[in-house]
């Protein structure tokens, strides 16, 4: 067993302020969408779909906001954090 490797894994990754801000953007956006959905549930036609046309079911603004937040968090942020960490390591 490589003890050095284990100790490396156990060291918590210290995030810079920039990394924390970038990580928070997506969840905060999704949270804004969730708050909007709770504040105006009638905007979510999926909750009362009877008699709704395709576009009213497909385009639901609070869900779109949540989707943007999640997309940003899962598709954009991971690579960005890696690059940020690489740049930080290179500058040491």
């Amino acid at each position, binding site marked *: 067993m490589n003890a050095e490797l284990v100790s490396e894994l156990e060291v918590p990754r210290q995030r810079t302020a*920039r990394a924390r801000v*970038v990580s928070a*953007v997506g969840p905060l956006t999704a949270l804004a969408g969730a708050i909007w959905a709770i504040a105006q549930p009638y905007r979510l036609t999926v909750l009362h779909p009877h008699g709704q046309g395709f*576009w009213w079911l497909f385009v639901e*603004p609070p869900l779109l*906001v949540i*989707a943007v937040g999640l997309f940003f968090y899962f598709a*954009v942020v991971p690579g*960005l954090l890696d690059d940020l960490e690489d740049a930080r390591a290179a500058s040491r």
Partner: protein
Amino acid sequence: MQPPAEHVHWLFATGVLLLGLCLLAEGVVGTEIWRRRAWRAYLWPGLAFTLGVLMWPVMTFYTNSTIHMLAHGAWAEMLMLAGAVELALVRGKLHSQAWRLTMAAALVVSGLAFLVHEQNSWFFQRSSFLHHLMGWTLLFAAVFPLVRSVRPRSQTAVIGFALTFVVIAVFLYCDRDVAPVFGHISPLAGAPHR
């Protein structure tokens, strides 16, 4: 099968919101790190260009007056132009920072298009209010890309520019076909729905 006009506004709001978040992230981490991956470097300029392309069908199918059509055409052209210039800057086809003035011009023209094509007063109904608000917001926000072209490292300009798109997305999400604004609606606007 054509989506109602307000749905088109919401779909565009979604694209503009994603554009704003990407710009915000670039502003926070810095352009050098943002562009470390090619797909990311092209993401927001490509998104701006795509939104411009998608504006053409909106102009074709949703405008009911000449001035309305011209305004949507102006937005389409400006989004495509600004997106294309940013793509060329990323690609290295253009080098001078002065090209960033294109984005400032795009915001000015877009803002003027909002203000000129809105024929009603602020409190006629919600869309009138939002048109005035977006027009003035874009006009004032043009200062951010203007400063960015002169001082590319200005954090205030970069973050302000990014937040402009987030704010515009919020305004677009607020749009309704016919709805009151702060309790005001003109009887001439028609009956509000939803």
